[in-house]
């Protein structure tokens, strides 16, 4: 039983790390703002879920597990909110999806 | 425990207690009154401490009751007491003399904050002067620096802001360099207490980190003390600060840093780094000489009176360092004495500027033309302080220059050159001060330049201000005729600094 749990938790840890990595690569390689955001949302949803789940399995039923779950809950609330706020701000600022150009020529915007 | 035992801690506690209260006091005159009272109280404590250290004793106080290398210890020797006296005295005189000009130049609702910041400067500088802990110096250095930036930024023209930004950058680099140096010494000794560092640095196997520490500390403190060639921030900061602030900080803030520099070099490094005395002399003496000549030279061509006096301060710091660079008793005595006497002279000059500032808005030399006819007492005080700055016999400035020249002759063949530089720069001081005084006494007022000259009623500054200015000038004469008290303190300070030098 212990071995199964250990294997499962390591699989989750490695998987989570992989998703974070993919998210990072995606944020660098995707062509425009919205697709980049789409890629990077992996790093704050699936990635931490798997990593923290793996950690919870490692620590068994203890205070640590509760803390880990609290962190997970927090991340699951704040991550999507931040993504939403970012996307909304971008669309309000006049950023158009699918192209590399901006409708508004606001010099503040980073070049895609 | 009686109150007496707590006196060493009070010079910091009193202004720290008064500062937040002053920030919250309304109306603003109450804030001024609180700041003035706290200043006077600190001055009284400083006088007590100076009297107590007259016999060369060191007064220690364990903060929190924890013994020395574990807790923070205050250690007040005669050098600390002397500098404390300068800080609190300058603060008291400047805050009394500066009330009207501050009232005029700073909006009413901001004045309580200004006075709170002023008291923070007092507390920070006093904290540096009396502590025996290297990191504690950093903390109080930051209190005084941040508060100094605030009071300088109160200056009414926009150049005050750029001057203060430059000062902030330079000052923070200096403080951080100091912190790095302390970190390296701590790395090699495991302690932060000056006395303990001195004892433990003797038996460490490696010297490269200690050399690096010495370099960082000397450069950092030199930056904060505006030692040539790291003086760039000083002239503009002095020129654009409110007059009262200039009178206060010009008298004391760079000197406090010099005190830390002397402590670190003489107490911690000299006894432990082989040849450090020679290195110190070789490094500091040329800088001191160049600083003297550069400061005086630039002052001769400067047209703004406040900036001119700022450059003169750079030259005078050169004298202080020159004395220290001899690494002997005579030199250090002259150096410490000059800390005191220069504070007297420069403080009095800038206090006179505060008084002149009641009627003048700008301080180009031509704005002062003919001012002697309308404000003879103020300009008289200015002239006496100027004589003291030059070092005319009968004034305080003469005493320290005399001791400096005597010490220089003790340097063998080099001595003649040094004396030559001192005399030459005194003559340069005559030139740049004469450029101010001659037209101020004798020229007719320049109708275009004088901002307030069209007002026919222009006369002396208010009586209170004038009294303070005259008192400062009188002190220059008094300590020129009866120099026993500062001499005694400076003698003990020199002995104490040299105690660990092999």
């Amino acid at each position, binding site marked *: 039983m212990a071995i199964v749990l250990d294997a499962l938790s390591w699989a989750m840890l490695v998987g989570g790390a992989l998703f974070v990595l993919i998210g990072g690569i995606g944020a660098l390689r995707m062509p425009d703002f919205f697709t980049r955001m789409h890629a990077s949302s992996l790093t704050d949803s699936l990635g931490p879920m798997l990593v923290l789940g793996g950690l919870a399995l490692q620590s068994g039923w203890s205070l640590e597990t509760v803390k880990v779950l609290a962190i997970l809950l927090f991340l699951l609330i*704040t991550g999507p909110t931040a993504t939403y706020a970012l996307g909304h701000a971008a669309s309000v600022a006049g950023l158009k999806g699918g192209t590399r150009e901006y409708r508004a020529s606001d010099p503040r915007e980073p070049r895609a | 425990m009686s109150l007496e035992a707590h006196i060493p801690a009070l010079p910091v506690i009193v202004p720290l207690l008064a500062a937040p209260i002053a920030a919250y006091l309304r109306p603003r005159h109450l804030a001024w009154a609180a700041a003035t009272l706290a200043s006077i109280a600190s001055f009284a404590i400083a006088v007590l401490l100076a009297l107590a250290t007259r016999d060369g004793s060191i007064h220690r106080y364990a903060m*929190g009751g924890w013994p020395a290398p574990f807790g923070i210890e205050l250690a007040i020797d005669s050098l600390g007491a002397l500098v404390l006296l300068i800080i609190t005295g300058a603060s008291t005189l400047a805050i009394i003399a500066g009330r009207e000009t501050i009232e005029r130049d700073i909006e009413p609702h901001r004045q309580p904050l200004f006075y709170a910041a002023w008291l923070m400067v007092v507390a920070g500088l006093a904290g540096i002067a009396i502590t025996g802990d290297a990191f504690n110096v950093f903390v109080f250095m930051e209190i005084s620096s941040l508060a100094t930036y605030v009071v300088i930024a109160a200056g009414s023209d926009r150049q005050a802001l750029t001057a203060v930004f430059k000062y902030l950058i330079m000052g923070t680099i200096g403080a951080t360099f100091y912190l790095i140096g302390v970190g390296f010494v701590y790395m090699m000794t495991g302690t932060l207490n000056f006395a303990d560092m001195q004892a433990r640095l003797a038996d460490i196997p490696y010297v490269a*980190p200690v050399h690096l520490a010495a370099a960082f500390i000397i450069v950092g403190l030199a930056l904060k003390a505006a030692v040539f060639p790291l003086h760039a921030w000083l002239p503009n900061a002095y020129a654009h600060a409110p007059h009262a602030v200039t009178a206060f900080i010009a008298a004391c803030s760079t000197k406090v840093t010099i005190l830390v520099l002397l402590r670190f070099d003489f107490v911690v490094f000299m006894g432990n780094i082989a040849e450090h005395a020679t290195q110190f002399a070789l490094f500091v003496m040329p800088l001191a000489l160049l600083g003297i000549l550069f400061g005086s030279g630039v002052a001769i061509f400067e047209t703004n009176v406040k900036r001119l006096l700022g450059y003169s301060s750079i030259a005078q710091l050169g004298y202080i360092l020159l004395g220290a660079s001899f690494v002997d008793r005579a030199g250090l005595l002259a150096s410490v004495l000059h800390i005191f006497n220069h504070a007297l002279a420069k403080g009095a000059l800038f206090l006179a500027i505060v008084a002149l500032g009641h009627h003048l808005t700008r301080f180009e030399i031509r704005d002062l033309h003919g001012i002697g006819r309308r404000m003879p007492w103020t300009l008289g005080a200015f002239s006496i302080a100027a004589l003291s700055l030059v070092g005319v016999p009968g004034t305080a400035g003469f005493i320290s220059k005399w001791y400096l020249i005597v010490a220089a002759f003790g340097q063998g063949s080099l001595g003649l050159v040094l004396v030559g530089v001192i005399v030459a720069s005194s003559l340069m001081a005559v030139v740049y001060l004469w450029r101010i005084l001659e037209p101020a006494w004798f020229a007719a007022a320049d109708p275009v330049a004088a901002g307030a000259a069209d007002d026919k009623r222009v006369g002396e500054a208010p009586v209170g201000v004038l009294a303070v200015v005259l008192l400062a000038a009188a002190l220059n004469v008094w300590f020129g005729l009866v120099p026993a008290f500062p001499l005694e303190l400076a003698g003990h300070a020199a002995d104490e600094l040299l105690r660990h030098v092999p």
Partner: protein
Amino acid sequence: MIVVFSLFLLSLLVVTAIAIVRSENLFSAVMLSGIFSLLMALNFFILDAADVALTEAAVGAGVSTVLLLGALALTPTEERRRKRERKVAATLVTVTMIFLAISYASFDQPRIGDPDAPVHRHVAPWYLEQTPELIDIPNVVTAVLGSFRGYDTLGEVYVVLTAGIGVLFLLSAGRPGLLPHRREPRIESSLKSHLIPHVVGRVLIPFIVLFGLYVQFHGEYGPGGGFQAGAIIAAGIILFALLEGEGAALKVLPPRVLVGLAIGGALLYLLVGVACMLLGGNFLDYSVLAADPVTGQQIGIILIELGVGLAVTGTLLSIFHAFAAREQ
């Protein structure tokens, strides 16, 4: 394994620092400096400095970023490009030389983690041995901070207070009051109309403040204390101000109350010290506060940490409002 990890994190610090210096857009530079602070906090954590890591994360990545953004709202956000940069070559030579000097001296320095280094043989062991006996709280950092070197911490509180007074002084120039709060500032509309951030933010604020209080009062047992708590609570209230508008936040905590908190906190600390003097001990010698010296120390530390927390919260919020209230 942990060595490789820490080397990687340290190298990332250098990369981020270079990116900050090179970036021309100040917004991205500020964001990068927030990342820099978080990386720094991670490094501190690996180096066993939990308290410092918490402070760096709360102050460096949180409050500092908010202040920088507040200032950027009032200044240009693009660094001007020049054809010919001044001083670059000379500066590069200078910094390389100093870097080489530091590296040269490093070979004579104790290796990181060497238990025989002088720092671990003198003074520090005394703190570790005596804290359970003299003060009897688990967190030695809090014991040193609050009691053994309490005078430094007092100075630190006054540094914060000085900065607060300075910012209020500078930013109240040319306007009637210290912090005018009638006007509805421009930040008002930015988040109020956004439903999701608004709702989520409102849910989070009580937890942030609760966590701040936990950090405040748990500082004797775990990482934490007044500074961290003050920064966290201030962050929670700043979030409230962003969600509900400056005006609403200032209605809950008016400027005079904030300044009062800052001043009151600093005074509380100082007066604890003075009370020790009146009760017959040295300044800040908490042993005299109770019949039993150990209890006295604990009471003293709790009181001064409270003072620190109040002063930091009040000052940081005052600074934030001062920036937000300054119109362009």
